[in-house]
């Protein structure tokens, strides 16, 4: 660890010479979040209550967030919202600081499933923000009614000519391929991953492969008709559908029975956050029952907040926001990878993208 800091410090020192460090102000909170994920009126309420200004910055993938932190963001943001499988990696990389539970009385509002989670024992570093699923989305007009299966993506007989896209996030795409091959979404065996990578490569060769597109933009492409199938998140799907019910009438979201991703996004505080006290206040504010309900009612994702449940809109009680029991059995967390396993996966995915 010390070695890493020495190396890092040496080279960043040169950059620091030219870059003017962000000046930490007492009355500003820097939030680094996914886009389309925070109700603006919650931000306004927090600003009014604490007499501060909240500055929001956005990212589109966990990898992007991790890189920004590494590139100096570790001292620029107060609250970040990584997914479960990046939590252990952020902790091991010393990019986040432990939470002071005495400043988070609302932590007890979380459901049992989110207290002491496997990705962060005792909630030492993280508090759940929202949870959801990543599933298959397709256009019924182009493909007809389909069973809940990854066949639409990976089987050229089921989908011979309708354009489809898969996520740029290698772990999610390889997970889906692994699931279709029968190894489960959360496969980690090298042979299995290699087989999955070969499947994605063969899929990429098909004439109706329409590129690597992440979950939120793929919904825009679906409604425009430039792709007919893709992989997206349940809440974004309902969000866009409620904005444009006509456009999304024939667009279906399903949890493939072979297995798909369930995830939790968490709130964490970067190691050198400019304003950790305000960050704790913000996390506690979000964990409030009413604010938690308001958040879910706005972004259509499931709330990890037990106390917020009675206040949720009806659409949030049913699938796909609240997965059915059968769906729950197919859902798995994305494994958190480090060391050789991480490098192995990165090399595989690089190869898939490069060819």
């Amino acid at each position, binding site marked *: 660890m010390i*070695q*890493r800091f*020495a*190396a*890092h410090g*040496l*080279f960043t020192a*040169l*950059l620091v*010479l*030219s870059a003017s460090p962000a000046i930490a102000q007492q009355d500003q909170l820097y939030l680094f979040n996914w886009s389309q994920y925070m109700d603006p009126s919650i931000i306004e309420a927090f600003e009014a209550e604490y007499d501060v200004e909240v500055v929001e910055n956005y990212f589109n*993938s966990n*990898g*992007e967030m*991790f*890189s920004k932190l*590494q*590139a100096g963001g570790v001292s620029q943001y107060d609250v970040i919202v990584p997914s479960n499988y990046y939590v252990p*990696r*952020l902790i*091991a*990389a010393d990019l986040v600081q432990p939470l002071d539970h005495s400043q988070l009385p609302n932590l007890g509002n979380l459901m049992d499933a989110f207290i002491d989670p496997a990705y962060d024992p005792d909630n030492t570093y993280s508090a759940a923000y929202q949870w959801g699923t990543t599933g298959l989305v397709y256009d019924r007009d*182009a493909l007809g009614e389909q069973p809940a299966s990854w066949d639409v993506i990976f089987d050229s007989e089921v989908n011979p*000519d*309708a*354009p489809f*896209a898969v996520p*740029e*996030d290698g772990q999610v795409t390889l997970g889906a391929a692994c699931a279709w091959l029968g190894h489960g979404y959360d496969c980690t065996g*090298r042979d299995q991953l*290699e087989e999955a990578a070969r499947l994605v490569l063969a899929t*990429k060769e098909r*004439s*109706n*492969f*329409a*590129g*690597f*597109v992440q979950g939120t933009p793929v919904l825009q492409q679906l409604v*425009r*008709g*430039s792709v*007919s199938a893709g992989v997206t998140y349940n809440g974004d799907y309902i969000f866009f559908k409620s904005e444009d019910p006509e456009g999304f009438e024939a667009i279906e979201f399903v949890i493939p029975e072979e297995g798909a991703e369930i995830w939790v996004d968490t709130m964490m505080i970067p190691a050198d956050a400019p304003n950790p006290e305000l960050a704790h206040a913000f996390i506690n504010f979000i964990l409030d029952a009413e604010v938690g309900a308001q958040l879910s009612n706005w972004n259509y994702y499931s709330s990890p907040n037990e106390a917020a449940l009675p206040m949720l809109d009806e659409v949030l009680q049913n699938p796909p926001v609240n997965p059915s029991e059968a769906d729950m059995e197919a859902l798995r967390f994305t494994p958190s990878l*480090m*060391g*050789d396993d*991480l*490098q*192995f996966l*990165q*090399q*595989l*995915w*690089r*190869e898939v*993208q*490069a*060819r």
Partner: protein
Amino acid sequence: MTRLRRDSLHLLGTVAPGALCILVFLVAPSIYLMGMAFLSTDATGLPALPLSVQAFRELAGFGFLGWSPGNLYTLLRSLWQTLLATVLVILIAYPAAYYISIRPARWRPVLLLAVVVPSWTNQVIRSVGWMNLFAPGTPISDLAVLLGITEPRMGLFPSQFAVIVGLVYNFLPFMVLPLYAAFERLDHAQVEAARDLFASPLAVFRHAVLPQTLPGLMAGTVLVAIPAFGMYVVTELLGGGKATMIGNLVAQQFAAASNWPLGAAGALIMILATLLGLWVLRRLGRRLGGDREVVI
């Protein structure tokens, strides 16, 4: 104050700002990059000591799977797409620049402006424009399907074709402008002399026009080929993972993939390839220019 001292102060005052700029914005980042390329990654993917050539090994294709050619494909594809785009840009820009140069004087600025104005818009927005033109179901895509160029229900985007179109469109002004400047100074007496001596049109071009416009052509080629080789936005938006170039490989390592040493090694290779390309162009210019030095 002695004269020497006054002169040195004067020199310092005029040279120092420029030198400082070069030092801070060119030399320091390059040293940082070189250092980064020789670091290894720790368990979480962050750059770490000890120094190693791990990143270059990975770049060459050695990894857990033994040797694999993915990165090599990417490099070769970058070179091929750069070459193709540059040749197409030359083929379009040469007649265009000539045409503009022979218009009446009051029309020339207007026509030049028409070439340049699109490049005032952000690259991303122009690429998204092409995405909309080439998406499935658009007239252009339907025509392509009719002609059997694309599969039914598919668009012209994303594809290598779309990337080449995007590159050509993006860099056209950078070739037209220097060529226009060359054509404007063209000594028409030489062209007429060649014609009077019964030179074929090809010979007129080869011996009278080309040598005179060569500096413009060379400058344009440098302005087009080098940024095209490092292109990231156009391939990212229009390629859909089918036309990945080395710029994308590098960008991915600094973004989603979080492998900075590998990204830095890739960037170093890009710099070396660019320098090599410049050297080749210089040699080529000298040969075409009849051993005259063509400054690029």
